[in-house]
């Protein structure tokens, strides 16, 4: 047990601070344009982050990355400093956080050459075409079909809940190529351009009232056979490398503590009947419960980090992060709404709206994160089966299995 950082890392922290201070004018600008795509400032910020290794750190230089060695402690320190001042940690979309890592593991040299640089720079935006109306938690049940025709694949079917599809250039998509094979073995991982004829994107409004995800329909959509990642029929394994990256991304404890800090600031400032909310015993009690949980998750993160530094598998300790982290974030937002009381009911451009509606949006959006990326129930299946060694669900007799 020793939380002190060696001098080298203290120097690193100092360098991050200096960097953030120096470029404040860049990161204080909006990172996205009104259509959702990265803004010019967002791309400049991303370029600076890559140059200094604060994002895309281990991606080779030849693909436009920083080309550095992994150092999870440095990455952790950088994340802490970014959170502390509220600086954006770089472009975060499914292309960068999910597709690129998958391509690095499973892609051909040509694919890496072609796609990684424009993706991480923010020039090309990707969406993730996995879920279908009949395939959510049971993703392997997906039915969108691709058949070979000469040099092409021809895709027919439908995806749903596809975040960002309405402003994306490209999609990585799971399709069934071997309908006769057992369900996990007949899937392929394809990449296609969103302006290919036969693709129709219909935005779906989420509960926040904004169009954040979409339905995507495919009618005889043609793409060259070279646009497959991994082997034909091996898409499930390829997709799993991506899901692994997604789960690592969700449930960040730094966010929980940062949000709590903001709630405390509101409670110290706002009054009810002349008494500061922070002195209201009921709210205080709830705040302290959340504070303990957020502290526990932050320290849990340090424990996992230590396992990582030693190259150890943290076992069940790692498997609980998505479940706990997303629920905690949602409950903190729900608490903030209670702190605001009737003001917490305001929305859109109402007078008296606090923090430009951050809490209202976060309260709803964080619920989406509990569901997306594997629901809480699926997480509990994973914890009990892989973490505690309990029996798997009995499989229904399935054809060919």
């Amino acid at each position, binding site marked *: 047990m020793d939380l002190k950082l060696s001098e080298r890392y203290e120097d690193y922290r100092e360098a991050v601070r200096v960097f953030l201070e120096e470029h404040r004018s860049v990161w204080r600008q909006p990172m996205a344009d009104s259509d959702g795509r990265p803004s010019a400032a967002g791309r400049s910020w991303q370029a600076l982050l890559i140059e200094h290794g604060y994002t895309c750190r281990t991606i080779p230089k030849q693909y436009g990355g920083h080309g550095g060695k992994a150092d999870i402690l440095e990455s952790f320190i950088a994340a802490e400093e970014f959170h502390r001042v509220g600086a954006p940690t770089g472009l975060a979309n499914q292309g960068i956080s999910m597709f690129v890592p998958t391509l690095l593991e499973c892609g051909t040299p040509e694919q890496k050459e072609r796609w990684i640089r424009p993706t991480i720079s923010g020039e090309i935006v990707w969406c993730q075409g996995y879920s279908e109306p009949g395939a959510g938690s049971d993703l392997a049940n997906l039915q969108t079909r691709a058949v070979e025709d000469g040099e092409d694949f021809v895709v027919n079917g439908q995806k749903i809940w596809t975040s960002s599809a309405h402003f994306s250039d490209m999609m990585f998509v799971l399709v069934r190529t071997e309908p006769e094979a057992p369900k996990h073995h007949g899937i392929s991982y394809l990449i296609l351009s969103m302006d290919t004829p036969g693709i129709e994107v219909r935005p779906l409004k989420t509960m926040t009232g904004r169009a954040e995800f979409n339905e995507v329909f495919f009618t005889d959509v043609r793409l060259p056979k070279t646009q497959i990642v991994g082997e034909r029929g091996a898409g499930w394994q390829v997709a799993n490398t991506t899901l692994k990256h997604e789960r690592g991304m969700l449930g960040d404890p730094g966010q929980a503590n940062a949000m709590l800090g903001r709630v405390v600031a509101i409670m110290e400032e706002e009054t009810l009947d002349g008494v500061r909310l922070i002195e209201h015993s009921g709210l205080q009690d709830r705040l*302290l419960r959340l504070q303990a949980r957020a502290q*526990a998750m932050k320290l849990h993160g340090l*424990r996992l980090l*230590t396992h990582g530094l030693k190259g150890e598998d943290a076992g069940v300790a790692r498997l609980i992060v998505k479940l706990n982290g997303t629920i905690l974030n949602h409950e903190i937002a729900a608490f903030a709404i209670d702190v605001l009381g009737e003001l917490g009911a305001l929305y859109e451009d109402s007078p008296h709206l606090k923090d430009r509606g951050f809490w209202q949006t976060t309260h709803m959006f964080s619920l989406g994160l509990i569901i997306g990326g594997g629901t809480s129930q699926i997480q509990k*299946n994973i914890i009990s089966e892989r973490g505690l060694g309990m029996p798997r669900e009995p499989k229904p007799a399935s054809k060919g299995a």
Partner: protein
Amino acid sequence: MEFGLSDEQRMLAESVRRFADQNVDAERLKALADAGETADTGLVEGLAGLGTLGIVTPEGAGGSAMTLLDACLVQQALGRNAVPAPFTASAILAPIALAAAASGGDWLPRLAAGEARIGVGLSEAAGRRAGTGIELDGERASGTARFVLDGVGADAWMLTTTDGGLILVDADAAGATCVALTTIDRTRSFAEITLKRAPVTLLMQPGADPTLLPRLLAAGRTALAFDSLGACERMLERAVAYAQERKQFGRVIGSFQAVKHLCAEMAADLEPCHSLCWYAAYAAAAYPEEFELMACHAKAHMGEVGQFVARTATEVHGGMGFTHEMGLHYFFKRIGVNRQLLGNPDQVRQHAAALQGWRRAG
């Protein structure tokens, strides 16, 4: 940067765990606890032999001068088996206070050797109920202290006074009486000590060391959190194991998702508690300015998680869990008592609020 237990700490915990497994199996626990035997000499000797009773005691006084975290890892291992032996008071709280007071006489080496025991009463410092409190009058004291931890059969009691002092009373002092308080937990003893102008040793003058009582209270809260952590770990393990043996509807109940999810929820709640407890104990020496608050968080949070795990692990066992025979109830009760001792979660959170300057004056 390393946030985890050292190899030495893992070995220490492992050795106490092994000792507890060998000496306090289900049968022995039942025999001792049902008889209310909370200071079995064999166990006390064994713990002394492992060097655990002098774990925080300075080296010059017969101890090994280890940290609160080390002591708490022992406490956790004792909680795992609901070991019916005095530890928290004699091996953690009393030595910390005696070492700080520098007027502990020859108590320290005797405690470390397991030759003497001190019961510790901090309940009034955590929150005073009507009818309790000890007033000091020169070198004599009068009043009542309740829930004196490991107090029955102790050689002396360490108690707080209403004005913030700390005293030591010999068990055979004139005017001192001890009444055993029967709690639901039969694995530890609790006493009510009443003093009528009893002669006492003043360990700390009121206000002489304003940090001592807060530190002691924080150490006690942290130790109790670790005790519950150990007991919860064991309850979850037992629930998972039972769920893989017991069959209903032609399959093991652990294959029912409802049961699996109860276990997953227990694990998800419990895992981060390790880190929270570790940090609280570590802060005692490394970050003293954070110690009190972190001890509050650990105690309150562990109280809540403990209640959930104690109930849920029992439910997973069905009617069996509710029986005396199964012995799960010893853990349920130990966790339940830990929750109330030195301030239950609601009280402790109020304290945490005050520490952060969030309590209204008056």
